[in-house]
């Protein structure tokens, strides 16, 4: 039995991930959902957060931004504005980005739309940090 799903993650910059996987955990709008092969066709909005991919028994974590997911029995397509694998996350840069965004919002120098855009950026940075912090403690391996 072909118990794999074809997972593809697209971002505006690139195809971030494309592989056959066993399971994928998606931060859907109505809560995290684990998707196995033969899932019922479904489309959902995605919140910024952590996406976990299980392949050959190993789990890979990605920080993802806002977007959409399309699930069919054999495929999962994720369209998000950001997708970074945990090991590529630059903690320091993210922290700086968060600080910058928070400062911008605090100082209220922005128009309405800009505030919204900054908040989105902030959410994305937070998601990255969350993924990074939770997994990469030097002690745990």
């Amino acid at each position, binding site marked *: 039995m072909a118990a794999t799903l074809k997972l593809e993650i697209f971002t505006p910059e690139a195809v971030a991930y494309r592989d056959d996987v066993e399971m994928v955990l998606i931060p859907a*709008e109505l809560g995290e959902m684990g998707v196995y092969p033969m899932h019922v066709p479904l*489309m*959902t909005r995605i919140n910024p957060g952590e996406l976990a991919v299980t392949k050959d028994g190993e789990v890979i974590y990605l920080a993802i931004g806002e977007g*959409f997911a*399309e699930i069919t029995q054999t495929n999962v397509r994720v369209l998000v504005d950001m997708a970074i694998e945990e090991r590529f996350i630059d903690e320091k840069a993210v922290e700086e980005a968060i600080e910058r965004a928070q400062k911008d919002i605090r100082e209220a120098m922005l128009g309405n*739309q800009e505030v919204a855009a900054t908040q989105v950026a902030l959410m994305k940075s937070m998601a990255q940090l969350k993924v990074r912090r939770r997994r990469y403690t030097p002690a745990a391996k």
Partner: protein
Amino acid sequence: MAANTRDIRRRIKSVKNTAQITKAMQMVAASKMRRAQMAALASRPYAQELSRLLLPFTSFEFDEDGGGHPLLQKRKGGRDLVILVSTDKGLCGALNTNLLREVGQFDPENTEFVCVGKKGLQFLARAKRTVLAEFQLKDNFSFFDAQVAAKFCLDRFLGGHVNRITVLYSHYVNTLVQEPCKLVVVPVQSFEVGSVELGRNGSRSDTEVKAEVPEYILEPNQADFLDSLLPHFVFYKIFHMILESRASEHSARMVAMKNASDNAKQIIKDLTLEYNKIRQASITTEILEIATAQMILS
């Protein structure tokens, strides 16, 4: 032979100056081109998938009062809104000329324009068309910048002022080939992005995608899902088309400037040859004169 050597020298000098400028512009365009091309190509898969995602919603037709989301409704007649994506600067070959020729297809009475890029604006002003707004985007514009322009147009549609939004842009095929394209982005329909089908008149016809579509569960619910997906699709689509235009612009400019530099080189070669011929001729005459004079004296 009376042609003055000094005149020719002067001309060679001025052509050399021009060649230097075009050469420099070529270099600048080449580096910008690489970046713009990468951006345009990298964003294609996402745009394509986004179109695919819409398939289940666009495969049936909605008419005026039929159900569905307002952005899916095909309203008959009415006014058109055209987003004209041109370049800010000239010297990019026939790119803008080809693009602006397409403007003629739209009825002057019932079309309003939104410009991205100065060249289009200038043309429309000369042609006395209705221009609602102009958006200037820098070289490294972000999705957010494009969204502001797109939002403006979308509001016109949702407000019922226009019944269609069409984007007129230069589709990037490769460094040598760019073609003017027009695509209807609102009401939303699915079309393939990367695969270009060449229409005979140079404009690309939308290749509508038809496929078997399973029935989907939508979360959180259909209305909310469409409310976020459809505007995002329109914004991204417009953003993507501006990226394509940018890639086309820099490619066209690079090629145009390369041709100009090559031409200049050829002209310099021809002029130098001419110059040397005249110089040689005058030396020969001078020697002849001296020789004759000497023969007479001796």
